[in-house]
């Protein structure tokens, strides 16, 4: 059994884990070198928080010179572990191939949230670098004392300290630490999660001293994937493990009135049907038995005559236009917008429609839970292991110290996907049956029932004077909140299981406005929050999906800038630069224009017109935050199919740690957001989400892949890494819309640009030829 190999499993304490790696505590006392044993006993550590102020919480060095970094971020398919190995090896002057990382285990790693807002390097990096710098200084101090040589004469290189001009005298880190732990205190700001920060006496190195940072070192997790080793959370296997499935209502809002367990009595291996409020789950010996039992279990659901939603997806935007708002805000206001519009020589107005989209992760979410002797261990693909620990403790009514969440890679999550729900359900099932339970959802649960990115209806107006200058910009976003459920999943009420029990959740009004620094003299940014279509346990509840707000709003804001440029027959980049002078975005636009050999001219291109057959081409641009993207498209006039032939993307994200890793991330962001642009829309009728699989929720395939994706990496070595995980997800949709306009002269203001919708937009506009 693979489980026999599990060394980080139940009952293994952090101290035990470190001992297994052959390390104890090493301290550097007042009077010189003193060894102090770690005062923590081995039994209690499973339940104690990892103390960020202790250097040993971050780093351990084995006798064999192995360096283990413990940190509280997790990787969602972007190579974070390799980037951190580069940082550690550089700061510590350690051999790169001896650096290991342990991430996102609430019993072993400090609480740095997990994955959130592309913060892995941005927030995780500084503390890790400080810890490494401090450890390096300690190692030099110990070597200095032991060798009787001042620190100034010592060199550290590849995990070995040598004496400058001292011949062959050398001590390795492993020899210096000699199987003990670091016993040193860091300056901790007392905060956990996002703001957590530690510093030491030693400062991290300057960018010119970094050697591995900046190199394209291959990701260390890829071999385990291509050789089929245990890697993902779905691969976790425990002794005596049983298999669970959860059962979703046939329509949103339905409640189980009665459950006929006799209906599955003929299915072998059924262990238990678990009910908790309106939640129904099932546990069986074998996985296929659980799948079958979940589909055959007879449940009488509450009357289906009542409709769940006040609209279906076809009528969604008409509904949103007249729906009441529960929060109206003027987020920002510069100058006198109304007066500027009253004086305008010309007004440009447009309304953009963004449908709900699904995370639709490649695999339905999975978690393995093990309830034993009053303690719960959960292996989870969540982005938020620490918050999940808090929430699962609340669900089970046990102290937080009795819960351990171990992150394992899930399928790409792109935010708060269904992984946030199944870990709670697995924990409940395991506690109910008193055995380890592996719970995986089915496809319809992952696509129809995951939290969605919100639909938005965004109206924008621009005022121009007689010379074609923009005098006012007026933004009005009527949207569902981005956070019907918290992205942090830190309370049962923020999960489906909790909502099936009627547990309350917080109400948050998160509706976006554009952030680009266009220097329009008058500006007003207004938001309205439309209440959810169904208040509780809704398959259309919203939460974070990739970035998460900018992909929704940048479609409108950067499409509209293009409309303004076209209205005065200006080139799309030249027009933007008029209002972005001196900004980061201006530099990025220039970089991307040069790389794409952008020809300065207005859109649509000369001769663009609607014809009945043939392929027409166009180019479009968009800028937001740290990236600018150009899309070059082909439009098949007969079918309406849009193909992005080439992307050119310029991205600035501070100091670049791993250039090829960054290129990989950019390609993924472009493709994922291209899929949202061309394919993705959650459909629903009045009682359920009908986008439930890959045929009813199609995504981009290999056939849609561009011929070329050019990545221009703008390194900013003096700026710490700013986070690249998602930034290049926001520009794609408007860039493609602008390119379609350039090619055809038709402006698409409703996502996605499916072939049918594009073709329909040509209707009645054909010219001969």
């Amino acid at each position: 059994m693979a489980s026999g190999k599990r060394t980080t499993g139940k009952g293994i304490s952090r101290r035990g884990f470190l001992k297994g790696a052959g390390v104890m505590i090493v301290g550097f006392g007042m009077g010189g070198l003193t060894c102090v044993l770690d005062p923590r006993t081995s039994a209690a550590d499973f339940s104690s928080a990892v103390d960020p102020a202790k250097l040993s919480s971050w780093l351990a060095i084995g006798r064999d010179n192995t360096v283990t970094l413990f940190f509280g971020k997790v990787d969602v398919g972007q190579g974070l572990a390799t980037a951190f190995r580069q940082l550690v090896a550089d700061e510590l002057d350690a051999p790169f191939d001896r650096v290991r990382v342990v991430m996102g285990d609430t019993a072993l790693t400090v609480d740095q949230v997990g994955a959130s807002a592309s913060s892995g390097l941005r927030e995780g990096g500084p503390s890790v670098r400080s810890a490494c710098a401090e450890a390096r200084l300690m190692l030099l101090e110990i070597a200095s004392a032991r060798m009787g040589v001042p620190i100034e004469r010592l060199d550290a290189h590849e995990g070995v300290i040598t004496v400058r001009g001292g011949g062959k005298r050398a001590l390795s880190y492993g020899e210096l630490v000699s199987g003990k732990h670091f016993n040193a205190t860091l300056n901790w700001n007392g905060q956990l999660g996002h703001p957590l920060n530690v510093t030491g006496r030693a400062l991290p190195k300057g960018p010119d001293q970094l050697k591995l940072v900046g190199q394209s070192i291959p990701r260390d997790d890829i071999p385990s994937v291509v050789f089929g080793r245990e890697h993902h959370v779905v691969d976790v296997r425990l002794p005596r493990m049983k298999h669970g499935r959860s059962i979703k209502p046939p329509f949103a809002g339905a409640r189980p009135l009665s459950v006929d367990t006799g209906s599955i009595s003929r299915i072998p291996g059924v262990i238990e049907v678990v009910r908790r409020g309106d939640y129904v789950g099932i546990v069986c010996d074998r996985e296929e038995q659980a799948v079958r039992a979940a589909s055959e279990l007879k449940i009488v659901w509450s009357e289906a005559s009542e409709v769940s939603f006040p609209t279906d997806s076809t009528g969604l935007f008409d509904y949103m236009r007249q729906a009441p708002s529960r929060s109206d805000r003027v987020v920002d206001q510069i100058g006198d917008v109304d007066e500027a519009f009253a004086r305008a020589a010309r007004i440009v107005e447009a309304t953009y429609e963004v449908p709900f989209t699904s995370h639709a992760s490649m695999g339905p979410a999975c978690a393995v839970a093990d309830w034993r002797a009053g303690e719960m261990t959960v292996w989870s693909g969540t982005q938020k292991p620490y918050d999940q620990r808090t929430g699962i403790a609340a669900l089970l009514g046990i102290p937080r110290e009795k819960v351990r969440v171990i992150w394992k890679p899930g399928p790409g999550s792109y935010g708060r996907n269904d992984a946030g729900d199944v870990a709670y359900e697995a924990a409940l099932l395991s506690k109910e049956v008193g055995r380890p339970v592996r719970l995986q959802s089915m496809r319809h649960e992952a696509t129809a029932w995951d939290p969605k990115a919100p639909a938005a209806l965004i109206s924008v107006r621009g005022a121009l004077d007689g010379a074609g200058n923009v005098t006012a910009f007026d933004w009005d976003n009527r949207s569902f909140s981005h956070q019907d459920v918290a992205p942090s999943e830190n309370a049962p009420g923020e999960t489906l299981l909790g909502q099936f029990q009627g547990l309350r959740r917080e109400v948050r009004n998160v509706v976006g406005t554009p952030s680009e620094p266009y220097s329009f003299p008058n500006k007003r940014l207004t938001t309205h929050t439309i209440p959810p279509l169904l208040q509780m346990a809704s398959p259309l509840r919203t939460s974070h999906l990739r970035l998460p707000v900018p992909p929704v709003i940048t479609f409108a804001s950067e499409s509209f800038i293009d409309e303004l440029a076209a209205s005065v027959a200006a080139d799309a980049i030249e027009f933007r630069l008029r209002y972005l002078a001196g900004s980061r975005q201006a530099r990025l636009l220039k970089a991307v224009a040069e790389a794409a050999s952008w020809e300065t001219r207005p859109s649509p291109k000369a001769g663009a017109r609607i014809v009945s057959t043939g392929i027409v081409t166009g180019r479009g641009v968009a800028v937001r935050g740290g990236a600018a993207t150009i899309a070059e498209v082909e439009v098949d006039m007969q079918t309406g199919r849009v193909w992005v032939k080439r992307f050119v993307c310029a991205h600035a994200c501070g100091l670049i740690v791993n250039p090829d890793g960054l290129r990989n991330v950019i390609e993924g962001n472009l493709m994922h957001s291209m899929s949202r642009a061309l394919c993705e829309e959650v459909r629903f009728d009045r009682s359920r989400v009908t986008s439930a699989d890959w045929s009813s929720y199609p995504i981009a395939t290999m056939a849609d892949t561009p011929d070329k994706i050019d990545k221009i990496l703008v390194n900013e070595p003096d700026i710490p890494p700013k986070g690249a995980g998602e930034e290049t997800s926001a520009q794609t949709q408007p860039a493609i819309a602008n390119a379609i306009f350039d090619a055809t002269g038709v402006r698409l203001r409703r996502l996605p640009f499916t072939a049918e919708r594009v073709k329909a937009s040509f209707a009645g506009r054909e010219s001969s030829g």
Partner: protein
Amino acid sequence: MSRIDLFVNGRTHRVDVDPDTPLLYVLRNDLNLNGPKFGCGLGQCGVCTVIADGEAVLSCMTPVSSFKRSRITTLEGLGTPARPHPIQQAWIEEQAVQCGFCTNGQIMQAKVLLDRNPNPTEPEIREALERVLCRCGAYYRIIRAVKRAGELMRTAKGQR
């Protein structure tokens, strides 16, 4: 339940399961293999792909009883870190992975393609792998990896 002998990755495994069980669950839960993954159970995404007698098979929806006389190869049967299959080597060299959940399906479809057509054109690659979805959008690198794998396989053949 019934006893079924499965020939997987060069070895015979006797399992005692309901013959209607999809092959995927047997490979993962009885043989402890990690390569094939559950993605949809509907034959739409391809991440469960294994090779049976040279053909790509969607293991999530094919009953185990229909493989009694088949030679089944999973991702684990291609190569090892010490002796990687050229396709695995190409995947590492091109870093053609994001989350890695679809990688099994991509590699197994690439193997079926390259075994039949050692020098495919890019349109042929796109067509052969179109049925395996990648939600992270690693397609651009996957195309490059298949091309490189073809080169590696042709080189290896030429040297023999």
